[in-house]
């Protein structure tokens, strides 16, 4: 057989091969990486499940006490709220979201009811940690530090939704009558939330 013929047969036989059996022997190695299957364990997972009652290292007593409220903490809370909470509770925390509209048993409540406005930061933290009613717990998805941040942002959100003119610093009141700048793009409502965040921050400091 000519050299070209051999090559042709070689290429043909390769064409049927999945990438897994690559010609490079280092391509696929006998080791474990996250989420890989592994025959060594009976459940075929390379990643192991912690033993029952194991406590994550991040869950120290210091981590479980409410951290001091800073602008950075509330800002982090906003980011995490928008990822993990807004899906159901809505970006404004009013329970208005696409997902919520499809919930048949019980739609997530608005955070702006009198009952929930009475919740302390620690109570909100506990709801996220243990779940409440139909709301599942979020302790494995959201870290302890982020749960504190979200709880503080939720309080800011509550303030923002019932803010009155008196809550706006006297020297900023003139800005409220100005039309929204087109460059802002996010619209009036989002800007309002932001003011809520900052006013809450200053309140807690005082």
């Amino acid at each position: 057989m000519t050299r070209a013929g051999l090559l042709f047969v070689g290429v043909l036989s390769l064409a049927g091969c999945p990438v897994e059996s690559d010609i490079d022997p280092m391509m696929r190695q006998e080791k474990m990486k996250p989420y890989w299957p592994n025959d060594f364990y009976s459940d075929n997972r390379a990643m192991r499940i912690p033993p029952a009652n194991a406590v994550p290292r991040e869950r120290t007593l210091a981590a479980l006490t409410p951290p001091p409220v800073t602008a950075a903490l509330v800002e982090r809370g906003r980011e995490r709220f928008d990822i993990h909470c807004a899906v159901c509770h809505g970006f404004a925390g009013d329970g208005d979201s696409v997902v919520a509209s499809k919930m048949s048993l019980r739609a997530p409540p608005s955070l702006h009811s009198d009952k929930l406005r009475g919740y302390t930061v620690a109570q909100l933290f506990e709801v996220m940690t243990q779940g409440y009613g139909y709301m599942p717990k979020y302790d494995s998805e959201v870290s302890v530090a982020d749960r504190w941040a979200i709880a503080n942002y939720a309080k800011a959100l509550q303030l923002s939704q019932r803010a009155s003119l008196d809550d706006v610093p006297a020297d900023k009141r003139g800005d409220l009558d100005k039309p929204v700048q087109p460059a802002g793009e996010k619209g009036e409502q989002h800007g309002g939330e932001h003011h809520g965040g900052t006013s809450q921050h200053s309140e807690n400091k005082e």
Partner: protein
Amino acid sequence: MLLLLLYKRTPLATLQHEPVTQPIEFDHRHHVADDGIDCRYCHNTVETSSSAGYPATSVCMNCHAQIWNQSPYLDLVRKSYFTGQAIEWKKVHRLPDFVYFNHSIHVAKGVGCVTCHGRVDEMAEIHQGPDMQMSWCLDCHRNPKPNIRPRQYITAMIDPAPGQGTFETHFSESGSNTSQSPTTMNDVHSRTSCTTCHR
């Protein structure tokens, strides 16, 4: 030999654009575009770990305990939830085992999800967007600027079309202050040492 080298670079061998059928008919279009769920709700270790993370079945059940909770499409999800047996999702982007890719550093430096994964919000079945050859990695590692965005837009599916500019040009041209450039803000540098990716 030349033929072989060429074959290795065709989509036939790189599996580029090849939709991967998963054990469950999961549709990213619905979850991302219709429901507006942030990527990080499910892939919640993308900022802290080498792996973006497949969501635990309990994350599916956060919503699907109430939504579509009778649907036969989700039989496998409920089975996994109640038995603890993992759903065997198929890997779509698989690098050679001698490549140590880390999601968290790419996200921290401002490489958006869409930059590598494409318009996931438009994919019924996820497929691999880039060819994932080493030259593709190096193109960006040599000159990261065009692919860097501000961190708050990390999961945004906006893909600046050719001619419309990148985040980098947008921020450095619109603002007179060049410190606004995402490359500067995220402290991004070219990384081409072999040991950056190979150990």
